[in-house]
């Protein structure tokens, strides 16, 4: 346990050393992967043209894609900025100020402060939990959330895995989350996490179906499961104008999948202490509630812009990467706003609405889209 400043500093130093050692291993692996095709010569130090050419060639490799741009670093940065943006947005909506003190300009270093706080807390593992699953569940949640990032294209050039069944990969990944939530809830071996876990399970499973049906509408309009094709077909008309009901259903169902208000019951603070996350403290909590939820947020907002808002298509002077990130950020804002606006839905009303209302809405739009495509309309 950390009792003194020295202890805290020692922990930070150990962490930095571990990161350096792992970074060394990673860099040597990268060199092994990239090295043979792109030799690094000493003349690069003298000749900036060569270094520039090397950098551009490096940007085209898979390693760069996985680690930096549409992959890990980008998503982590997006998660951090989304976290800060959420708190400032909510604060402004509630006539407060939000985090203000970390960093010179309006609390901009707050995510770093949050991570340092979570890292410095003790990892409490209660005695009665099932150690294996208790430790496995957050790791699995983050891993699976990151696996979905692999098929999301930021532009045609920047995609990690060009897959012909990209949409199905997202479905398969979404189907894993109830499993990890149940694992986390059950391993905690106590009353409130169990209740919260069962509610989370019910909610996630019930809202998967309208989500899948509403994603199928752009797929039917395009005729392909490839995300690159779906964006390509929107060059004349965005699908949100052709399938507005599906877009609305997707939006509401992603609110439910992310366990955000108004579908907040599994984490209901006044009711269930902290729902299925009660027993998790310190970095465990930071892993689930921090990283995995924001990665899911990024995945669902990116999916919304790809399917309905035309992805990276936009007026030319600005690069397509900018358009994608801009649109995804607007969708993220819309996903964050209901937290300050709506009350929480009761669990039976929540489930009844999913089956009675959103399922039917998604089906209606799917049938309309199928009828339109069969009638000969080719977007």
């Amino acid at each position, binding site marked *: 346990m950390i009792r003194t400043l020295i202890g805290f500093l020692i922990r930070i130093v150990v962490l930095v050393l571990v990161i350096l050692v792992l970074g060394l291993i990673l860099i040597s692996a990268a060199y092994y992967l990239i090295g043979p095709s792109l030799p690094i010569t000493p003349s690069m130090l003298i000749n900036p043209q060569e270094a520039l050419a090397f950098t551009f060639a490096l940007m085209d490799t898979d390693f760069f894609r996985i680690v930096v741009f549409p992959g890990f670093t980008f998503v982590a940065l997006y998660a951090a900025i989304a976290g800060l943006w959420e708190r400032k947005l909510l604060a402004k909506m509630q006539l407060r100020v939000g985090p203000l003190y970390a960093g010179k300009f309006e609390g901009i270093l707050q995510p770093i402060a949050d991570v340092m706080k979570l890292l410095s807390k003790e990892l409490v593992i209660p005695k009665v939990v099932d150690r294996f699953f208790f430790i496995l569940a957050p790791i699995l949640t983050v891993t699976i959330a990151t696996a979905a990032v692999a098929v999301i294209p930021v532009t045609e050039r920047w995609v990690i895995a060009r897959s012909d069944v990209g949409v*199905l990969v997202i*479905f398969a990944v*979404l*189907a*894993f989350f109830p*499993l990890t939530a*149940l*694992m986390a809830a*059950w391993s905690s071996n106590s009353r409130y996490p*169990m209740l919260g876990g069962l509610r989370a399970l019910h909610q996630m499973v019930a809202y998967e179906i309208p989500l899948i049906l509403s994603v199928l509408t752009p797929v039917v309009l395009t005729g392909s499961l490839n995300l690159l094709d779906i964006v390509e077909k929107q060059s004349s008309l965005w699908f949100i104008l052709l399938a507005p009901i599906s877009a609305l259903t997707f939006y509401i169902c992603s609110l439910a999948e992310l366990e955000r208000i108004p579908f907040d019951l599994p984490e209901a603070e006044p009711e269930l202490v902290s729902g299925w996350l009660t027993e998790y403290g310190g970095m465990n909590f930071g892993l689930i509630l921090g990283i995995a939820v924001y990665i899911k947020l990024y995945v669902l907002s990116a999916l919304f812009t790809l399917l309905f808002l035309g992805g990276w298509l936009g007026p030319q002077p600005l690069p397509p990467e900018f358009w994608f990130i801009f649109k995804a950020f607007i969708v993220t804002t819309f996903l964050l706003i209901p937290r300050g606006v709506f009350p929480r839905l009761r669990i039976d009303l929540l489930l009844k609405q999913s089956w009675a209302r959103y399922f039917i809405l998604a089906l209606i739009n799917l049938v309309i889209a199928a009828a339109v495509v069969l009638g000969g309309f080719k977007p």
Partner: protein
Amino acid sequence: MIDVAFALLAIITVISAILALEAKEVVYGAIALSLSFVGIAGFFALLDAVFLAMFQLTVYVGAIAVLILFTVMLVRREQWLKAKEGVHSVLGVLVAIIVALGLGYLVYASTITHVTPSVEQAPFTLIGSQILSEYWFAFITLALVLASAVIGAVVLAKLERD
């Protein structure tokens, strides 16, 4: 010549299948079962059936494994322990070995031992057209079976509550 991915997947799938049946607690068994489902999905991906692999993940892991875990967890733990293991374990292992050896011999004695790594693959869109045209009757029957399963499950749940 054995591929590393294939060997790894085979080991993971078979060992989790054994663990699913042999683990002390049923919850561990259910999670090991879902791991073997993931292994089978990996096999499908190795066989160039990516659509089927994602379908298997979504249905088996996303639905069946969740259902099984849900059932296992809805019941309190002490009562499961009353079901003791059968005394016919030795006979069971013997039967399993005989089945495995029999199937293995059948495979060896046939002419399938030649390798056919043909590069041509079928696009997965053929699955949909085949189901809707050639196997339409099975498709409609499947829809009826699923509907009746849902109705049956709802009726069973309702009867309990009375």
